[in-house]
């Protein structure tokens, strides 16, 4: 099977479950809904995208959503040039998504990190414990935009 066929079949499959894949250089982009995430992921695994490269959360406070982006990757020669990008938007005040750990086992640490730093809850993830932050961290998730760090410039630390 050549490059086109496997990717094209995946595209077709994604269309069949009601998603709209968009082709960009090196990336196949899909906007999904929380409920269509798992079927889309299962489809991706069937067509060769057998592991995740990244789970990423982007905070968009102006729209009131957190965008969770999954980048799936394959080591096969025909697919390795193209990343599969699945984007899901969840409300900012109650970000909940189904966990993809059953589909992509290596989501274990990626999802845990996204929960830790972005506050997205992955339902069905067996251990949403602190990963990178100290275990007693009780501040807001640090990667959200309303968590401000001091920016560049001269500043004096007033005790």
């Amino acid at each position: 099977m050549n490059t086109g066929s496997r990717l094209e079949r995946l595209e077709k499959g994604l269309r069949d479950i009601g998603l709209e894949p968009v082709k960009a250089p090196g990336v196949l982009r899909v906007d999904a809904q929380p409920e269509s995430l798992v079927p889309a992921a299962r489809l991706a695994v069937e067509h060769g995208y057998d592991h995740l490269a990244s789970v990423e959360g982007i905070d968009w406070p102006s729209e009131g959503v957190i965008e969770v982006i999954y980048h799936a990757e394959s080591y096969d020669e025909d697919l390795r040039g193209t990343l599969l990008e699945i984007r899901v938007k969840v409300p900012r005040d109650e970000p909940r998504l189904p966990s993809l750990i059953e589909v992509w086992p290596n989501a274990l640490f990626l999802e845990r990190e996204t929960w830790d730093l972005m506050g997205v809850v992955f339902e069905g993830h067996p251990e949403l414990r602190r990963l990178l932050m100290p275990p007693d961290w009780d501040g807001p998730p640090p990667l959200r935009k309303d968590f401000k760090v001091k920016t560049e410039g001269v500043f004096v630390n007033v005790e």
Partner: protein
Amino acid sequence: MTCPFMGLAFLGRLEESSRKAAQWLVERTPVRSLRDWAISFSLWPVHFTTSCCGAEFAAVSAPRFDMERYGFLPFNSPRQTNLLLIEGTLTRKMARAAEIVYQQMPSPKFVVAMGACAIDGGIFHNSYNIVRPHELFPIEYFIPGCPPRPEAVAQAIVRLHEKVKRSEYGVKARET
């Protein structure tokens, strides 16, 4: 801790007085200078890497720089060492571990902070997860640089070595 000889009243407070006597003896000049000579040539840092400066710290004991010439030997357990090198950034999580390690070390003990991050955060000065080591430990030397070259680390160790040799450290021992 109870003194095993507590029952023997005529011995008095044996433990305390013997400790005082030992302290007095150790502080006399010939004994003290012998002790400080020994310590200065036997600065054993503990195997504790706090951050990426550890790569340069490893280079310090590796062939090209070889600080073992001064008796500098990274060693296993904090109980047997006397030098804590803060190698770069100290995160909140790590700071707790560093404090425990420092408390586990037997005195006299020294702390050297390595890298810009250990001075005031360096490139991570505005991070939400770092701690400045001088708030936790009495630091003998700061080594600037990001990361400091191994020569700089070696120089700090030689400086510390000379300082200890001249007995110019903690009479008013900064105990924790």
